[in-house]
C-alpha cells in the first residue's frame, strides 16, 4: 500500500504536519525533482521525500549545502522538471547568489524555493525575514498559515512557477511548519509537466549584454504576476466596518481567533494576504475605501505596512495606519493575545488584563544538553584539559554548539554554518591567541572546507577539530557525503574526510576516537606545541544514530563503586545526563548510560559492568 501522502485519494482528509502537507502539495503540483539542505524548521519536508523516495516519482537528494541544493534544483528546472528546493531561512543566504540570477534567467520547468523562517529563534541564530528575498530577487511569494494551506499553496506555487518560469518563494514560519491539522487531499496529476530544454543563449547565459535585457523581462513578468495576485483566491476580503485589518502569514490565524475571542467576527473588514508578493495594489486600494483606520498584521519587518503607506500616499488617501509604529514589535512571534490587544487599541477599547499566574523564573531549568555517551562531550572534556581557558574556542552550527555551557565551555564565538575555521583564523591572526575551531562533519562538507583551504593558503595558525559523528545529528540524522549509513540503507559513495584535509594542504592531521582519552590527550598535546594549520578528526558515531542503525546498544554500563573526591570532579566536569547525585552519593543511571566507557578512564571510582548484570 502506498503512503497516504502519495496515494491518489482526492477528498480524503489526513491529519498532517505543515511540512508533510507541503510534500503532498508539491506532489499534487507535479514535482519531479527535490533537493535540500536540512535545517529546522524545514527538515520534515526533505526527510519525508527521502523516506518515500522508493515509491515516489521524483528525484531526491540531500545536497552538500543550500547553494548547491538550489543550483542542482535550478539545473533540473532548466532541463524542464518541476523542482522544489528546501532550506531554513539562513540557508537562503547561502543560496542567495544563484537565486538572484536564476530570477533573471528563469527556470522553465518551474522551481519553488521553500524558505522556513524562524520568528522567535526557536532553533536558529537569527530571525531574519526572508520575505525580503522575494523583493530582492523578484520572486512571487506565497505564505501559508494552516496545514491545508501548506498543501494547497505548495501546489499553486509550483503551478505558477511552471506556468511563468519565474522561481517562486514558499515562505513559512516555524509555527506553520510544525502545525498539525486536517488536510483534504486533492488529485494527483495524470501527466507530469515537463518542458524539454531548448538552447537560448540570451535567456540562459547572463553575460552583461543579456542580463540587461533579462532584467527588463523580469520586471515585465512581475507586473503580469501582480495582476494574478489581484485576483488570487489567496487574497480575500471579508467582513465590514470602519476598522480594516490587513493580515498575512500566520498572523491570519491569530486574527481569526482574536476576532472570535473579542466577539468581533464580521464586525471588522479584513483583507487576508496569502499571495504576498507582488502585493495586489488595486485590491488594497479598493479595500481601504471608506475605512476610518487600518491595522496591519505581519510578523517581523513592516514590509506590507511600508508598502501600503507608500501606496496610500501615491493614491492620495489619508488614513490612520497602525502597525509596527504602535504596539506591535519587529521581533519575535505574534500571538492571539497580541492581536487582541492590537484590535482593542485600534478600536479604542481598554487593554485586556488577566489574572493568570505569572511564570516562575526561579525553577530548575532543563537546558539542552549533549546526550549521555555523546562523542562531543568526550572531545570537549579533553580539549579543555589540554587547552583550558587560555585558548579561544571558535564554534559552529550543530549539536556541538551545546558545548557552550559550563562545564564544557567550548564556544566563545559563533557566526554561521562553516564559519568556525575562517572566523577562528581571523581571530587568531588579530589576537595572537591560541585558537581552536570546532566543526562537525556535515558542516565541514557544507562550507567548512573552503575555510580550511583558506587557512592553509594564508598560513593561519589554527587548530581545527572536526567532530566527525558520522551523521547530520542536530537536524535529525540526515545523511551527508561522509556517512556509512543512512536511515534507508548504506551509503555507497563515501567521501573520506582525512584525505580531503590532506588534499587541502594540511600536513598535521590525526584521526582518532575521542573516547580513547589517553590517545586524544596525547594528540592534542602534540598539536598544541605545533604552529600553523593543524587538524584533528575526532571520529566516533553519534550514539543515537548508531543505536538506531545497528538496532542495539553497547554491552556495558558504568557504575560507581565508591563516591570519592575524584568521582565528584568527574561528575561536575562532564555533566553527563546519566549521572545522579543522591544524598552525597554519585550514581550512574543504567538506563541512560550509553556505555561509552569514557568516565572509567578519568577516575577509578567508575568501573564497567555488564548491562543488566
Amino acid at each position: 500500500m502506498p503512503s497516504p501522502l502519495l496515494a491518489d485519494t482526492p477528498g480524503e482528509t489526513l491529519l498532517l504536519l505543515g511540512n508533510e502537507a507541503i510534500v503532498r502539495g508539491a506532489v499534487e503540483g507535479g514535482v519531479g525533482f527535490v533537493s535540500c539542505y536540512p535545517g529546522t524548521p524545514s527538515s520534515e519536508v526533505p526527510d519525508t521525500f527521502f523516506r518515500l523516495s522508493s515509491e515516489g516519482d521524483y528525484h531526491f537528494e540531500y545536497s552538500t549545502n543550500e547553494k548547491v541544493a538550489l543550483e542542482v534544483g535550478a539545473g533540473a528546472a532548466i532541463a524542464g522538471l518541476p523542482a522544489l528546493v528546501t532550506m531554513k531561512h539562513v540557508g537562503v543566504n547561502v543560496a542567495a547568489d544563484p537565486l538572484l540570477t536564476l530570477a533573471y534567467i528563469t527556470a522553465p520547468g518551474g522551481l519553488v524555493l521553500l524558505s522556513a523562517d524562524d520568528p522567535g529563534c526557536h532553533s536558529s541564530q537569527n530571525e531574519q525575514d526572508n520575505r525580503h528575498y522575494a523583493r530582492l530577487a523578484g520572486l512571487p511569494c506565497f505564505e501559508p498559515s494552516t496545514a491545508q494551506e501548506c498543501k494547497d499553496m505548495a501546489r499553486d506555487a509550483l503551478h505558477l512557477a511552471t506556468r511563468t518560469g519565474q522561481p517562486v518563494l514558499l515562505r513559512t514560519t516555524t509555527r506553520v511548519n510544525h502545525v498539525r491539522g486536517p488536510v483534504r487531499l486533492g488529485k494527483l496529476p495524470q501527466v507530469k509537466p515537463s518542458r524539454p530544454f531548448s538552447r537560448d543563449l540570451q535567456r540562459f547565459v547572463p553575460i552583461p549584454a543579456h542580463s540587461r535585457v533579462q532584467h527588463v523581462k523580469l520586471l515585465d513578468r512581475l507586473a503580469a504576476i501582480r495582476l494574478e495576485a489581484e485576483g488570487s483566491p489567496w487574497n480575500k476580503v471579508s467582513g465590514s466596518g470602519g476598522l480594516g485589518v490587513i493580515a498575512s502569514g500566520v498572523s491570519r490565524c491569530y486574527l481569526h481567533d482574536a476576532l472570535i475571542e473579542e466577539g468581533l467576527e464580521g464586525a471588522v473588514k479584513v483583507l487576508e494576504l496569502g499571495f504576498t508578493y507582488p502585493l495586489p495594489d488595486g485590491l488594497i486600494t479598493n479595500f481601504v475605501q471608506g475605512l476610518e483606520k487600518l491595522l496591519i498584521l505581519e510578523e517581523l519587518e513592516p514590509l506590507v505596512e511600508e508598502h501600503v503607506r507608500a501606496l496610500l500616499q501615491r493614491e492620495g488617501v489619508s488614513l490612520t495606519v497602525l502597525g509596527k509604529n504602535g504596539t506591535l514589535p519587529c521581533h519575535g512571534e505574534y500571538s492571539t493575545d497580541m492581536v487582541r490587544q492590537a484590535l482593542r487599541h485600534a478600536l479604542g477599547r481598554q487593554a485586556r488584563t488577566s489574572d493568570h499566574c505569572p511564570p516562575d523564573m526561579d525553577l530548575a531549568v532543563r537546558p539542552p544538553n549533549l546526550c549521555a555517551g555523546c562523542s562531543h562531550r568526550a572531545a570537549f572534556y579533553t580539549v579543555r584539559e589540554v587547552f583550558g581557558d587560555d585558548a579561544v574556542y571558535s564554534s559552529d552550527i550543530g549539536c556541538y554548539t551545546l558545548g557552550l555551557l559550563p562545564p564544557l565551555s567550548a564556544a566563545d564565538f559563533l557566526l554561521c554554518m562553516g564559519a568556525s575555521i575562517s572566523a577562528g583564523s581571523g581571530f587568531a591572526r588579530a589576537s595572537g591567541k591560541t585558537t581552536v575551531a570546532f566543526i562537525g562533519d556535515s558542516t565541514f562538507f557544507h562550507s567548512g572546507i573552503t575555510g580550511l583551504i583558506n587557512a592553509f593558503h594564508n598560513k593561519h595558525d589554527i587548530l581545527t577539530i572536526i567532530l566527525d559523528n558520522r551523521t547530520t545529528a542536530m537536524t535529525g540524522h540526515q545523511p551527508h557525503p561522509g556517512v556509512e549509513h543512512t536511515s534507508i540503507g548504506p551509503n555507497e559513495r563515501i567521501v573520506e574526510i582525512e584525505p580531503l584535509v590532506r588534499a587541502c594542504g594540511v600536513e598535521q592531521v590525526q584521526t582518532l576516537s575521542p573516547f580513547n582519552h589517553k590517545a586524544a590527550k596525547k594528540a592534542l598535546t602534540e598539536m598544541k606545541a605545533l604552529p600553523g594549520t593543524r587538524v584533528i578528526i575526532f571520529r566516533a558515531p553519534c550514539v543515537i544514530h548508531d543505536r538506531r542503525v545497528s538496532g542495539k546498544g553497547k554491552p556495558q554500563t558504568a557504575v560507581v563503586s565508591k563516591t570519592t573526591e575524584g568521582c565528584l570532579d568527574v561528575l561536575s566536569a562532564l555533566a553527563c545526563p546519566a549521572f545522579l547525585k543522591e544524598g552525597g552519593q554519585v550514581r550512574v543511571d543504567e538506563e541512560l548510560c550509553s556505555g561509552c566507557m569514557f568516565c572509567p578512564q578519568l577516575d577509578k571510582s567508575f568501573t564497567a559492568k555488564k548491562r543488566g548484570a
Partner: protein
Amino acid sequence: MQRGRIFLTGVGGQGTLTATKLVSLTALDEGLPVVSGEIHGMAQRGGVVESTVLIGYLSPRITHGEADVVLGFELLETLRALCYLKPGGHVVANSEALPPLSVAVGKVPYPDLDEVRDKALSVASKVLFLPARTLAEQAGAAQSANTVLLGAACAAKALPFGMEALERSVRKYLKPTLTEVNLKALALGAKAAHG
C-alpha cells in the same frame, strides 16, 4: 467543548508528542475542528517538550492565561506551565518527578507535590494529580504513562471526547503489540480520576 485549548507539557522521552498526536487524531475522527502545535529544534532528550491541541481555533499557539486545560506529564514542568492556564481552568498531571540535571547533580531543589498542588489550586478550578508512571508499570509498561494521563484527563472531562473514542484511537493508531497495555493504562488512569 465547542472551543478549547489544551496545553501539554513534559520531558523528552515521556511520549508527550505521541499523546498530543493521539488526542488530535481522536478529535479529528470525532469530527472536531482540531489544530495542534509543537516546537522542535533544540529540544534534545531530557529537554522540555511543550505542545498544544486546540478545538475551534486556527492558531496552534497558546500564550499565558489561555489554556483551558494543562496536561502535565512531569511534575516540575506542570508547575512551569501553570502560567499558561486560564484562571478557572483544569489541571491533570503526573505527580511523579523526572529531575533535571541541575537537580540530579545536587545544585538546585526540586518542588514537592504539595507546593505544585497549592499553586495549581490557586488558579485552577479542578486539579488532579496521579502517579502516572507507577500506574503505567501496573498496566505493563512504564512507557504507557502518557496514556495513563490521557485516560485520567478523559475521565475527568478535560478532553473534548469520551473514553470510547479514546479507546478506538488506541486500537486504531498504536502498534497492535502495544494496544492491550495502553487500553489497560487508559483504564487505570480513568480509575485514578474517579478516585
